[in-house]
């Protein structure tokens, strides 16, 4: 469990990035922070591993106030994945995955063997192990980033728009992969995105943020879709809601289902034997 308690952050230049943010992130589930650019998502995420220290308020991981923990040690037990992977360009794929175990003194042989296993987990061909990151596609680099984040088998995994820079097809592949991995590993994931689609796909709990890290709404995707808290949320999820709002139309005597944009979503099958035969 991660608990943000009255967290504010004012940067030295005066920017109030987060203003009195309070939330509980349950263990072993995925919480997604979603909001437009500059709403403070990255700042909030980086407070969890003390890359940024709050100006006021406290953050607890389970029962520990993290301001009392040593930052470097704390970071080594929390997985971190970011956009553009942030891999070490001078180390091979396998050594990149093994980065944190190597830092914590695991032997090279052991760390590499574990790294190869992790490459399987995230769907990377072992043949890529000795390549450098620049020799991989963007999607493959992100997989390496995810594998690196998982390498110490952390309880907590922080992900900052990890799939933001890859094309839509690869993004959706990576999202599915993450859903599958999460089903097996059940980490406490805090995921940042500005893509509401992605938020609803991945999040058990979705936090919609306004500027200054102010919470517009917290809930499961279903709760938010069914009952947008206010106009802001309504607009923010508007497109998504429209697309998911299905309605029935009759075309040439047949009933078809169209989505909010008027596109055909499917055919309505009535349970009569006749239409059963014709289908």
């Amino acid at each position: 469990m991660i608990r943000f308690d009255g967290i504010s952050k004012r940067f030295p230049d005066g920017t109030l990035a987060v203003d009195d943010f309070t939330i509980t992130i349950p263990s072993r589930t995925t919480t997604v922070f979603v909001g437009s650019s500059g709403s403070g998502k990255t700042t909030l995420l980086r407070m969890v591993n003390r890359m940024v220290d709050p100006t006021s308020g406290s953050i607890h991981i389970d029962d520990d106030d993290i301001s009392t923990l040593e930052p470097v040690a704390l970071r080594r037990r929390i997985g971190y994945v970011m956009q553009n992977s942030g891999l070490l360009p001078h180390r091979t794929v396998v050594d990149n995955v093994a980065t944190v175990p190597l830092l914590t003194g695991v032997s090279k042989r052991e760390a590499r063997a574990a790294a190869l296993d992790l490459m399987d987990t995230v769907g990377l061909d072992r043949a890529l192990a000795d390549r450098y990151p620049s020799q991989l596609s963007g999607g493959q680099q992100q997989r390496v980033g995810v594998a690196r984040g998982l390498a110490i088998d952390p309880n907590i995994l922080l992900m900052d728009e990890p799939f933001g820079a890859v094309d839509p097809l690869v993004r959706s592949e990576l999202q599915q992969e993450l859903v599958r991995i999460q089903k097996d590993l059940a980490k406490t994931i805090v995921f940042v995105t500005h893509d509401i689609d992605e938020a609803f796909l991945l999040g058990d709990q979705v936090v919609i943020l306004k500027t200054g890290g102010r919470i517009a709404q917290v809930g499961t995707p279903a709760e938010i879709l069914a009952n947008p808290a206010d106009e802001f949320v309504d607009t923010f999820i508007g497109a998504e809601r429209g697309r998911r709002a299905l309605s029935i139309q009759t075309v040439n005597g047949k009933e078809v289902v169209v989505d909010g944009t008027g596109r055909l979503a499917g055919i309505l099958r009535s349970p009569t034997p006749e239409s059963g035969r014709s289908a």
Partner: protein
Amino acid sequence: MTWVLANLGQIWELTVAHVLLSIAPIVLGFLLAVPIGWFAYRFRVSRGLVLTVCGLLYTIPSLALIVAMPTILGTKILDPLNLIVTLTLYAIALMVRTATDAFDAVSTDVIQSSTAVGFGAWRRFWQVELPLAGPVLLAGLRVVSTSTVSLVTLGALVGMSGLGYLFTNGYQRNFPTEILTGIVGTVLIAVVFDILLVLIGRMLLPWARVDDAARRGAGTARVKAVAA
């Protein structure tokens, strides 16, 4: 040519002396410039001052500096230390800006993510910042190496050994062959040093070539795409 063959022994001795006089300033200059450059990169306030001092240092005429060294250091006039210290200062002056740029060029994304996964400042310097600054540092070191090898010839004017002796001696005797031999020898030393540095670079920075190729590959792909 006959003169060269007849004096091969002396030429070899001068070459060895030249090489030895070159190595110390190159190595010392590099080892001192890297931390100074890192300091200027890390602490923005110091940056302007450090870079200005280095720039000014470089404008002092080298001969004047060599001649002034015995007074500054309290050394004897013929002490090779005068030349070595002078050239080390020049090497630093040349190298600090490059070193600062080299650290600047390391991607902030990579530094941030290294910090985020648990590199402390010390390990991050040795395992991330320094190696990634490597290619630019190497480029700077190659310039320093060539410049130092050439500057060592000045030593002859203050009685130091080295291939510069062939310049002064050849000039006094009005004997162009000897001067030419000095020039060719100096260039050869510079070239050999440069090749060695490139080889060391390939050994220590194998990823840099891959990176380069990847960028060039991406470049060509784009060009092809535009052409198509």
